[in-house]
């Protein structure tokens, strides 16, 4: 192997944080298994990630040793469970650099977190004394983009229907980037909230948010970032991003299903009306009316997913122990490798940025005119697990004139050998359908 010396003073190869992928893979029991007689090649982490033993153990241990309800008992088990649950909240707050632990609201997933904000808007709109930032009606506008997951489209469509507000959106360019050219016309004094995906789950695009944030501040609107695909893959700092809300979902970041997060600026959450009513979210209740607890409790009615939250805390510990910058770099290298490798496949067309810049390790493509279902089926017979379909982002498919795409997505445990297996599998697909 030849090596080229990088002049001193320039960033050196070893400056980049790295980790041993084989050692990471050993933490994930499922990666040992076979599928259809082949070693598992899991390229569907954008859909859901696998869970390391460190997380599975915490989940089992919680039920085996510390099980009790939270925030409502003085006994020892109740105290242990509460400490574990609140401890997880603190870990997650630190993970995203939240200024206060109380800014982290546990939800079921990203979808619920977005709906929570959308319904807070409706509830506020029914109450004249509510904070005007949450009051919305005819003449007001909600801005999203054409590259959203359905979870960040439908709740806003429903909000617009309930309140008479108007839904508008950023278009997507041919290269799969957000088209910000109409920013000043799109985000105006009429805008109440801009809700934007940080990293697209279908195109892989990572949106640069600073111009939008600046415009949102100028017009006095609120900004929600759907970080379902970014928080698992890159370092997140909510102060640095200067968003008002972010949402993410535990199962895509080595955590269990059933747990997600709404982060909101403390002052804003304090001004936000409750959505779900029930136990644990109140200050006091009489038969006539109730008053509500401060955030985050105000938004966590009923018994929460306790063990899942605790396990998400373990997932965050796990990711932190490897290092988010290292994970981000690993995926950047994989993405560069994969884009090059896929470019060698005849008839393959990538939807989304075809350079590993401003994008993450999620690559959607078409293989000639073979339907993605058929691509996915042949790949599955070789143990290669990709997602096929519209990826809950139908408007993107429509934008690119296809009913569906095939999508390969990577994570911290993905290897270049797995990408090779994908490329070899695509050769097999071409054989069957040519």
């Amino acid at each position, binding site marked *: 192997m030849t090596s080229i010396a990088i002049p001193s003073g320039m960033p050196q190869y070893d400056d980049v944080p790295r980790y041993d992928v084989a050692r990471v893979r050993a933490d994930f029991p499922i990666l040992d298994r076979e599928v*259809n007689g082949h070693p598992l090649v899991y390229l569907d982490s954008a859909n859901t990630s696998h869970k390391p033993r460190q997380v599975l153990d915490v989940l089992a241990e919680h039920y085996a040793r510390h099980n009790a309800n939270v925030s409502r008992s003085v006994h020892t088990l109740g105290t242990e469970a509460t400490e574990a649950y609140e401890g997880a909240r603190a870990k997650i707050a630190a993970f995203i650099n939240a200024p206060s632990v109380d800014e982290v609201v546990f939800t079921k997933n990203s979808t619920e977190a977005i709906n929570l904000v959308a319904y807070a808007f409706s509830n506020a709109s029914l109450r004249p004394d509510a904070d005007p930032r949450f009051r919305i009606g005819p003449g007001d506008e909600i801005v999203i983009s054409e590259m959203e997951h359905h979870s960040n489209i439908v709740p806003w469509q429903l909000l617009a229907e309930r309140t008479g507000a108007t839904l508008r959106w950023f278009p997507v360019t041919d290269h799969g980037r957000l088209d910000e050219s109409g920013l000043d016309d799109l985000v105006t004094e009429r805008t109440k909230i801009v809700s934007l995906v940080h990293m697209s789950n279908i195109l892989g695009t990572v949106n640069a948010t600073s111009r939008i944030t600046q415009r949102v501040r100028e017009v006095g609107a609120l900004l929600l970032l759907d970080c379902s695909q970014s928080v698992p893959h890159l370092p997140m700092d909510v102060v640095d991003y200067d968003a008002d809300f972010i949402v993410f979902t535990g199962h895509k970041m080595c955590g269990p299903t059933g747990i997600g997060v709404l982060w909101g600026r403390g002052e804003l959450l304090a001004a936000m009306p409750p959505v779900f009513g029930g136990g644990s979210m109140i200050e006091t209740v009489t038969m006539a009316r109730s008053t509500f607890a401060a955030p985050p409790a105000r938004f966590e009615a009923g018994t929460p997913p306790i063990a899942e939250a605790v396990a998400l805390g373990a997932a965050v510990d796990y990711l932190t122990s490897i290092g988010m910058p290292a994970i981000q770099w690993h995926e950047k290298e994989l993405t560069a490798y994969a884009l090059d490798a896929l470019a060698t496949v005849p008839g393959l067309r990538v939807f989304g940025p075809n350079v590993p810049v401003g994008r993450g390790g999620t690559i959607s493509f078409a293989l000639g005119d*073979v*339907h*993605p*279902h*058929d691509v996915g*089926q*042949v790949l599955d*017979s070789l143990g290669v697990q990709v997602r*096929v*379909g*519209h990826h809950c982002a*139908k408007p993107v*498919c429509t934008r690119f004139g296809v*009913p*569906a795409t095939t999508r390969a997505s990577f994570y911290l445990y993905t290897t270049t050998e797995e990408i090779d297996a994908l490329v070899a599998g695509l050769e097999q697909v071409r054989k*069957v*359908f040519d």
Partner: protein
Amino acid sequence: MQLDQLYQEIILDHYKHPHGRGLRDATDPVARVGEAHHVNPTCGDEITVRVTTDGKVFTDISYDGMGCSISQASASVLHELLRGRAADDAAVVHEAFVELMSGRGQVTPDEDVLGDGVAFAGVARYPARVKCALLSWMAFKDAATRAGVGVSPEVKA
């Protein structure tokens, strides 16, 4: 799971060279026409099936759509099998195909009834693909009902 059980030659053949594809208008001005559009929400496959009938016989079954090899081949086979058939007769074939697809691979198909449809026996073992195979058949059923000719027997034997 063997891939060639799923992608039988016959299926690939119908997919690459579909029979009767394209929506056609009725040639007989008094014919009854029914149409139905079905989508498979999980994958975005779509099909429109149009039936033309004189009240007894399906004089034409035309279709258009986009989707995977299984859904498109299945529409081609549907056209082959049911066009020109009397409604009662078509109902028997329809029922046999639905039964085959719902059988999780446990049903032995009768080639006399199902013709090229027997090639879909392997598909029944892939639960994720059964919907693809049934898409055009379900659209056909709705289209036939709209044309005033039911194809699902009132009482199942």
